[in-house]
């Protein structure tokens, strides 16, 4: 058999690749089962029926076309914020500022909409301008952290977190002051963009177009990161920045570009939060999507395509919260506990990669 590997060296490579793919499916699957068992023990301890619970999660998340659409809708911001973590992760950046880029993008979209809506500008034009502003604001905000990393050696994790708080403060500053709609007395908000300017649902569904945008973006970024020169350079830099620099790769520009792409994704999520969900900017935008997206990306192992199913799964858990609350007389925070357990167990399972014999590439065996 050794001859096969000598004559067709790719045969051994293919099998190694297969094993590593199998590993990246088996480890998370095992972790999900472990989380389900742990959560079942939690429920049993409280005298609740785990079987009933998981059945309700299934029904609330995927059981009917209504619940499935609800899951897709909730998955939308998570896909985009997941991408916002995954792309910088490829180049070795740990950026946790998607929340800030989302908020700032949403605020930019809602802010620029005010004069346009007041002047009665065409809907399509208004929405295009809103998208551009949201993406630009998010990309700019996130690029600051990338630039500080490259130019000054400032840790991007902490700076992106700080920038998140600054972004939220900027929004509050305007929403509670200059741009406050006088009619919003209880909850300071910007002027609503109004029903006519809101993005509708995909025909035949209740899911807004943001989901499609997230899906398309995930595919595009998957191709860019795995097939383009840019993606290759980013991966080389992520693997070994020093070697990348020695090869003459423009490390600084790559770092800032990846950070900007991340911010653009989060800013786009912010746009959909305004144009499809809230219709205005206010404190509801600070919903933690940016932070959940980080964990979604980790569970998808920073693979843009894998982010989509992971985000849908978490959308489904959130979507089933109401049903569980009504049927099992448990607080809506139950979904949070389940989510927390899954996150913790899945991250713990990262330690298993490369340590399970079954998935290691076998040597051809007859080296004499």
């Amino acid at each position, binding site marked *: 058999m050794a001859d096969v590997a000598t004559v067709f060296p790719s045969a051994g490579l293919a099998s190694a690749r297969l094993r590593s793919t199998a590993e990246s499916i088996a480890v998370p699957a095992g972790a999900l089962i472990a989380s389900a068992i742990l959560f079942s023990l939690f429920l049993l301890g409280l005298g609740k029926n785990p079987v009933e619970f998981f059945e309700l999660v299934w029904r609330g998340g995927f059981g009917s076309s209504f619940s499935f659409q609800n899951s897709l809708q909730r998955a939308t911001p998570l896909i985009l914020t997941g991408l916002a973590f995954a792309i910088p992760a490829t180049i070795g950046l740990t950026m946790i500022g998607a929340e800030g880029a989302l908020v700032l993008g949403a605020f930019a979209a809602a802010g620029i909409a005010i004069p346009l809506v007041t002047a009665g500008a065409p809907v399509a034009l208004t929405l295009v301008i809103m998208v551009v502003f949201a993406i630009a604001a998010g990309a700019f905000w996130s690029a600051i952290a990338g630039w500080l990393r490259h130019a000054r050696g400032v840790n991007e994790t902490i700076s992106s977190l700080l920038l998140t708080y600054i972004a939220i403060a900027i929004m*509050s500053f305007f929403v509670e*002051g200059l741009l406050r709609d006088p009619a919003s007395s209880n909850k300071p908000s910007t002027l609503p963009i109004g029903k006519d300017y809101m993005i509708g649902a995909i025909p035949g569904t209740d899911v807004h177009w943001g989901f499609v945008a997230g899906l398309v973006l995930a595919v595009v970024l998957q191709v860019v990161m795995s097939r383009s020169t840019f993606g290759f350079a980013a991966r080389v830099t992520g693997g070994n920045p020093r070697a990348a620099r020695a090869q003459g790769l423009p490390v600084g520009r790559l770092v800032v570009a990846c950070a900007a792409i991340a911010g653009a994704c989060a800013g786009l999520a912010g746009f959909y939060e305004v144009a499809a969900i809230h219709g205005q900017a206010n404190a509801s935008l600070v919903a933690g999507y940016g932070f*959940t997206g*980080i964990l979604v990306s980790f569970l998808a192992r920073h693979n843009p395509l894998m982010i989509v199913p992971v985000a849908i799964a978490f959308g489904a858990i959130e979507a089933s919260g109401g049903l569980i609350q009504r049927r099992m007389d448990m607080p809506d925070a139950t979904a949070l506990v389940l989510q*927390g357990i899954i996150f*913790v167990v899945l*991250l713990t399972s990262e330690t298993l990669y490369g340590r399970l014999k079954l998935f290691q590439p076998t040597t051809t065996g007859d080296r004499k």
Partner: protein
Amino acid sequence: MTADQLATILIAMLGGAIRVSTPFMFVALGETLTEKSGRINLGLEGNLVLGAMVGYAVSFEAGSPWLGVLAAGVSGVFLGLMHGAICSLPRVNDIAVGLAMMSFGTGLAFFFGKPYIQPSAPRLESVPLGGWSDSPALAQALTINPLFFVGILSAFLMWWAFANTRIGLIVRMTGDSEPSARAMGVNPNLVRVLSTGLGGFLAGVGGAFLSLSYPGSWNEGLSSGQGLMAVALVIFARWNPLRCIVAALLFGAAGAIGPSLQSVGISQGYYFFNAAPYILTLFVMIASARSSASAREAPGELSIVK
């Protein structure tokens, strides 16, 4: 603006800083201890929220707020040890685990906290220290919760312990250089698990302050992200427990500017001040990056300063 108004604002800020700073101080001290051992715990928000819930619940059930504070600390130890143990496994990312623990801790707190939103638990009594002043505003500002002093005492204790005790030395050494810790026969993972556990205790106590003193009740919107800010506070304080007090007071004062301006009728524009501590911290980071003097202050094994 008249002198009276200015005095009103300053007194309100002083009172606000003292009131608001206590949870900041506890999470900052907890994070300092964890980071000194060479690991970062981004999940102290979970400890804070769970601590607030447990503290309130135990105070309600047992009738003793101090028992509540202790229980809050113990719940923080539980989360801290969990974080520490998981991060001891190879290839596990401490930043992501921190965020997962935040989500887990908050989830547990909201889940078990539902029945305690309504009932009223006994609070921690504040100590009036402003009796000597004729100004009721100043007297009110100087009505200080005992946990504030516990926090200051802990900061001095930690500062002294880092400098003068064997345990302090072991923690610092583990944080600065894992190989030297190993060479000295110290198990770095054990030191880090224990440091994260004790750091978690402090953050849990900070949470108890939120529910048992100020604002002084348990609900799901209690924390405004003070736990996540711990990381920023510690960078601002340059890993020095004493400077944690200053950082906490400063962050607290910045948050108190808004309400104190409101007390003299200025109700707009103060949101900018809320951002001030973060902008300041960012500048501290920019100024200290690539400076060898500040590199000496930071624990060498810490992922975020490498």
